[in-house]
């Protein structure tokens, strides 16, 4: 069976560490651009995005090109999906054109898992519904590690629309495997109780101050209006109770960092001042997206055995 990357949940700590180590190798030197490699010369990858995306798609495209692979991008509206073709048929058609991997984003949770049962070609999940977004969690971990921290014992507050967040789930699985303490915070309607049973080291709170107190990492999430099916908090009330403002940072550890997977909604879940503060590593996350995705593409497409860090 094809070894793609469907989610963090099924990965071992060693596999994750190997990707993170390799991503560090791909990071550009201070002030320079990403180096160009020919590690994936003659390989081809298809970017298949059924949901809009700017950063993830561009990031995957750049990562593929930096490794010397050919990359083709397709958006759902331009594809035969709009002509009523089923998802399985669309993927089978693309697979018949013999790419070495398919990068896929889809609004339905589990869509890539469902498809992988019918396809030999490895699928890289670039976000499936409200389930997982594995490369986001990997780039978040890379960003945290770049600050010199260890994940073990770290207190990470993830705040916002947890229920609808694939970023939250992938981060919970990753951080939990490395022994971090994860505090999930949001209004009860966006914070299912059962979250505390999906991984070890998870606690829940509806109180933002409590979540941020002594946190090493504050990870803000976008309010996903497009996935919420009923009105919850009004925009102003949400910001008042769950928006990150500069004052909150005083509760956190002095060296705490502020993260956000983007796109950010200034004044909705994070104030401009917090987003642009010295603590913010939001753009470092974007940059790490490329090196992490280079590591993932290499792992999936190079055909090399990947049994841990030394495999590279």
């Amino acid at each position, binding site marked *: 069976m094809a070894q793609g990357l469907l989610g963090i*949940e099924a990965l071992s700590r060693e596999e994750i560490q190997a990707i993170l180590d390799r991503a560090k190798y791909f990071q550009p030197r201070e002030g320079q651009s990403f180096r160009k490699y020919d590690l994936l010369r003659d390989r081809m990858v298809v970017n298949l995005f059924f949901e809009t995306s700017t950063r993830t798609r561009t990031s995957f495209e750049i990562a593929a090109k930096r490794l010397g692979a050919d990359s083709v991008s397709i958006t759902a509206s331009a594809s035969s999906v709009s002509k009523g073709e*089923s*998802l*399985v048929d669309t993927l089978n058609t693309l697979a018949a054109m013999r790419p070495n991997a398919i990068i896929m984003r*889809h609004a*339905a*949770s*589990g*869509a890539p*898992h*469902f498809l992988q049962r019918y396809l030999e070609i490895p699928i890289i999940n670039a976000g*499936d*519904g*409200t*389930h*997982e977004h594995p490369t986001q969690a990997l780039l978040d971990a890379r960003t945290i590690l770049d600050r010199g921290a260890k994940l073990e014992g770290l207190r990470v507050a993830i705040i916002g629309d947890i*229920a609808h967040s*694939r970023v939250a*789930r992938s981060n919970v699985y990753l951080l939990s495997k490395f022994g971090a303490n994860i505090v999930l915070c949001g209004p009860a309607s966006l914070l*299912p109780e*059962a*979250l505390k*049973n*999906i991984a070890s080291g998870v606690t829940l709170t509806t109180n933002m101050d409590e979540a941020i107190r002594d946190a090493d990492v504050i990870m803000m999430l976008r309010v996903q209006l497009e996935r919420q*099916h009923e009105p919850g908090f009004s925009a102003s009330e949400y910001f008042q109770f769950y928006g990150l403002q500069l004052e909150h940072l005083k509760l956190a550890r002095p060296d705490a960092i502020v993260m956000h997977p983007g796109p950010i909604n200034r004044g909705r879940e994070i104030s401009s001042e917090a987003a642009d503060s010295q603590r913010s590593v939001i753009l470092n996350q974007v940059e790490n997206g490329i090196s992490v995705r280079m590591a993932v593409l290499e792992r999936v497409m190079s055909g090399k055995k990947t049994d841990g860090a030394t495999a590279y």
Partner: protein
Amino acid sequence: MAQLLIKNGRVIDPASHHDGVADVWIEDGVIKGVGVSLPAAGSDVFDATGLIVAPGFIDMHVHLREPGFEHAETIESGSRAAAAGGFTSVCPMPNTKPVNDNATVTSYMIEKARRHAVVNVFPIGAITKGSAGEELAAIGSMKNAGAVAISDDGRPVMNARVMRRAMESARSLGITVINHCEDLHLSAGGDMHEGAESVRLGLRGIPGCSEDVMVARDILLAEVTGARYHVAHISSRHSVEMVQFAKSKGLAVPAEATPHHLALADRDMKPYDSNYKMKPPLRGSCDVTAVLDGIVNGAIDAIATDHAPHPGSEKMQEFESCPFGILGLETAIGVSLEQLVHPGKIGIGRLVELFTSGPARILGLDRGTLAVGAPADVTIFSTDREWTYDVNKSFSKSRNSPFDGKRFKGGPVATVVAGEVVWRV
């Protein structure tokens, strides 16, 4: 004169309190006698040595998809699947196209069944016109045409006042009201049971309370109206408790459970495999335990499959786009033996009761017994024959079963309807 002698089986007929090795003598579609060493003179003989001989099994909850969705199932194909599952009678739900909400559709189904079905088909009529939940359907004329109960099944009556009126009408007409209990506002958008598994998989949840609030409402309405009210495919632990409570208060509130809710919990789902997607959804393990206990302690009165065929084109999609429902007829006995009898939770007599006199009593059918003079519907099954379910060989037109490839110990061996062997293994 057509005669059949079923020899030497263990005859279990809970309705007549019979359990012992005997012969069953059938003539002209009617049971003529049950006794030891009956003479075979002139009869066809079925040797049932080592097998259980029971009244014909009744599945009081199926979807035969005809009229309207013949690409998924027909009355004929569904009846053949029923026969292969050991059922001699099935009760199709009214969510056809058009909805079975009037005597014309009821008669059409009965006539189709008369010509093409190999088992008895007793339609269930709609509660409201178009199952839209607003205006009562022509309940009396459907009953006269042959409907044996009323239900809006997957589109439960949300308006409590309409439900009350339906129960009052049903009581006046002497017909049972069956409800698929699901508060549609609480369950809206959900694809699986709400719990750790749905959160883990990022799928929207159908909370247990969406079933419970409607069971509670209906029990209160049943008390007010005095209607004979039946809870379809009960799946949540609180609902089982409430039905038990209603029974303890002397209310006639029977309930059915499906084999899949006895066998599978949400965590047994193959992730994003729509063969595990149905309503009510596979619940948490403690709900499964409660349903099993409900069968043991009598809170639950019948096993029904909720056989719900869907073609591959509809089930082979992203999980959230797939329709709800799975096949059930051919695996019901195998799954029930595995979950209930083999682990010693209930005896074989109680199992037979859940498939025969249980549903017959709920619907007021003159079936479910081997008493002399009863229609000669007989289910012959084994408790130890090993076999493997291959859904690609199913008599159903659809293939949506989570039990494909499963190995069973015990299952149907032959099905006799009105004295005719309509299926044998």
